[in-house]
Every structure is written in C-alpha cells, then in structure tokens.
C-alpha cells in the first residue's frame, strides 16, 4: 500500500523535473525546493544526526510517529544543494511505513539525472542520506516483525 504511495510521489517528482532540459535548471529547482524545507527544531542539530560522508553539514532526524517513519533535516545555511536533495528524499519517504521505506527502490534519482550525485561523494552525500534513512526504517520494521 505504502510502496505505491512512495512510487506515486517519485513519479510526481519525475514529472516536475521533466519540465527542465538543462542540468543547471534542474539544480536551480533543487535549490528552490531546499529553501521550502520546513525548519528543523534546534535540538535535532546534534553531531549524532550528522550525515556521514558529506562535504557539507546535513543533519537528519528520524523518528516513529505511530506506525509511520518521520524524517526532518537541515543543512548548514550555505549548503543549498544538499538541503534540496534531502528535501526531495523527505518528500518521498517521510510519513510512510518503515517496511516500505526500507524496501523502496528510488528510481527517481536516475530518472531526473541525479545518479552522478549518488555514486560520487561530491554532492551532499545523497547516497549516505538514503542509507541513513533506510537504516532507521529497517531497524523499525525489524522491531515490528519481532514484536
């Protein structure tokens, strides 16, 4: 059920990025999306929430709200691309069931031409962001199975 929602949201993102031909315009759109990310409460900006393997500082807070995973994130003010990237992930994965997040195949990254940002370390550690989100989700889907 929840997997469908994740894919619907991915398709929505792909459609939005289809409006742009130029990579620079896509990047501009990512930056603009980052600016709209709701502010993260100050207490979550702690070292243990830092995304590892990132040239810039990005904090990710993960929690369970009922049976759903909730993600919040922020970056150091200047790191706008990282913030935009994490905002895309939050849009797609936050509010979903942990099992669905853990199993999500994030095909939108390739479709909107961001795969180079996943494989290289240069742009905001997108791969690390995904890894940390999935790790949290996996832990909580395990707990659910064990209960």
């Amino acid at each position, binding site marked *: 059920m929840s997997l469908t929602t994740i894919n619907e949201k991915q398709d929505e993102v792909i459609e939005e990025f289809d409006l742009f031909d130029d*990579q*620079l315009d896509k*990047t*501009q759109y990512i*930056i603009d999306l980052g600016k709209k990310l709701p502010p993260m409460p100050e207490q979550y900006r702690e070292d243990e929430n830092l995304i590892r393997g990132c*040239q*810039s*500082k990005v904090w990710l807070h993960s929690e369970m709200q009922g049976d759903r995973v909730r993600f919040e994130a922020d970056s*150091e*003010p*200047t*790191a*706008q*691309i*990282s913030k935009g990237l994490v905002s895309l992930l939050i849009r797609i994965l936050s509010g979903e069931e942990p099992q669905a997040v853990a199993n999500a195949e994030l095909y939108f990254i390739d479709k909107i031409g961001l795969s180079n*940002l996943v494989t290289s370390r*240069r*742009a*905001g550690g997108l791969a690390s962001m995904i890894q940390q989100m999935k790790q949290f989700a996996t832990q909580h889907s395990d707990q659910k199975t064990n209960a």
Partner: protein
Amino acid sequence: MQTITQDILDIEAIRREFPVLDQNINGRPLVYFDNAATTQKPSSVINALTRYYEGYNANIHRGIHHLAEKATSAFEATRKSLQRFLNAAHVEEIIFTYGTTDGINLVAQTYGRRFLGEGDEIIISAMEHHSNIVPWQMLCEEKGCVLKVIPVDDRGDLILEEYEKLLTERTRFVSVVYVSNALGTINPVKTIIDKAHAVGAKVLIDGAQASSHLDIDVQALDCDFFALSAHKLYGPTGMGALYGKQDILNVMPPFRGGGEMIKEVTFEKTTYNDLPYKFEAGTPNIADVIATQNALEFMETLGKENIAAHENVLLDYATDALTSIEGLRIIGTAKEKVSVVSFVIDGIHHQDTGVILDQQGIAVRTGHHCTQPLMRRFGLSGTTRASFAVYNTKDEIDRLVQGLHRVKKMML
C-alpha cells in the same frame, strides 16, 4: 625566485597533444582546472604505455631475453632522466616509488624507525598535506618522538621566526612541503634546510606540487630526501620517485622485503641488494616508470622556465579576475606562489560551487584538499581550488569567472 611573465609557448599546439582536453562535459567544452590533483597526459606518455605493452612487455633486470633487456634499459633510462630532472649527484639516489606518499612513508618507516627514538623531535608545517603528517604521527606513536608544527600566517606564508624557535638540539628531522597544494605558497625551503642542518637534523622535501612548476636542484637545496609523484607532472599515476643522499640511503634498512631487493637469500640470513634496488622489492610499475620519461621529455622540450612563465601569466590573470567578483576571497596570498588559486565565496558552500561549475563543464576541486589542519587554521571547512597547467588559457579563466557569476546568481 624570479617571476617571468612573458609567454612564448604555442598553447594551442600544446593543447592538441592532450587528447582528453578535446571533449564536452555537460554540453560545454571541458575546462580542466584540477591540475594540482593530477595533470592530464600528453599523447607521448599515453603512446609510451601502449608501445611497452604491445612491443616489449617483460619483467626487468633478471631476464636474459631480448624483451627483458629492452624493458630493463627503458626502465633504467627513466632513472637517469629523473637524476637529471632533480640534478642528483648519483643515479643510485633515485628510488622508484608509487608516489610522494609512498616516498614519505618509506623514509619514516626506515630512516625514522632506525634513527629516531624517544623524545626526538620532528618538525613539519601547518600547511602539510595529510601524507606528510600521518606517517610522522605514526612514527611518533611507535617511537615516542615529538611532532612540532611551524605555524602559517594569514597570507599563507610559514612564520620562519617560529620555525627557528622550534629548532632545538633534539630536532632530528624536518619534513616540509615545497609548494602548498591548497594555497600555492612556495616555501623558502633552502633556508629551512640550512637551519635544520645547523642543528644536525635531516630534511625531507615534499615536492609533489613543486616538481611541475619549479626547477628542482637537490644538490643546490642540499635536502636529504625529496619525494615526488609522476602523475602531477604530466606522467602516469601510481609512479613516483624518492631522492635520498647516497650515504644516508646506504645506512637505512630496507622498506619492504621481496624479490629484487636481495643479494642472497638463505633461510638463515638474507643479505640485501645495493642501491637503489634495496628499496625496490617486487616487480615494479614498469610501464608507468618507462612512460614517465616521456613526461619529463615533454617538460624539458617546452622548458620549465617557459612553462612557469605561462603559468604565472595565468595566475596573475586569474587572481585579478577572481578578485573582481564581489564576495569572493582568495585564501593564500603569499608573495611567492605557483598557479593555484583557492577561494571562498560569501554565503555559498564550496561543494555547491563545485557542482554548478561542473555542470558548466568546469573541473575544479572543492573541500579540504587533504589539509584539514590548514583549513582549520583559516577557520574554513574547505575552499574551491582552481589550479593551472601549461595547457590552460586565459579564455578558460574567463569561463571560470562567468561560471562563478552563474553560481552566485543561482545561490544568492
């Protein structure tokens, strides 16, 4: 250090020797400004690699057949070229390594472990690459030596008065970088070496960045060791050289054990080969060693002073052009610099700058440049760095400036 600012090289012709430069990245012609990380390779170097593998691939030194003989002479010819390149007194003083890092580790692990002990002091500088910090820290941990650091001033120059204060009768080793990879600063290494020798310390010069920009004369410098990487001077990756004074190399124990470094092996005792083979265990990087000679020839043909002159023109042009961008601050404004410009832009993360420049076909490096202590000294997490080689042009610098205006427009 004289600064020649007259450009006599035919840069367009030189560019045609570098196949990699002729391509579009993200729909725009590539501008390659990441030369301090690695330079591109001319066709002569690329062809030498192919020629070796197609024509005379063989293991060297012990073979008695034709191919082995041919490979061995080509291999040893590079050693002679490097001797000339560095003006070393003896060809045996040139040891092939995997690169500068490997050379520094060799010295720390052999000279260091044999001759340094508890309480002995090692001096490095605050602008060292991690590869000239960590090997000494490892040695200090093992042997109980003390690491001391020459500070850097706000312009990016070493503070020599502080260096003098660090020198004591316990100073046994000084290891400093000739040219800073992050700032471009050319350090007064001759003075540093002389002052170290005055207290009886040995000196290693990290020549990774200097070797492609400056004339190197290890005898005039009187350094005890000099380490370089071929890939930063238009040569192949995974190949470098360590120069060491013969009398010092002779008393150093070997680094790695294996083939070629031995004289005779029995289960009771092994005796070691003479210089330089004592330090070259195992089948070396034959193809890359051979092709390095073509890289050295490339530079010799152009003339190092002509290369430097062209690069100085680019450095001055870039410094002026970048300074005119509002909010941009150059990090590293030493009087003596090579063609490296590190900078930050107010309100923009260096990582974002790098990504957006790349999307415009411009390759720069962003981050801490493996000099985290130096970045901390300047209160930065990193910079954007543009570094120029002989094939770069003013037009490309104009592209960088336009690219940065685009970055600002998108970000601010």
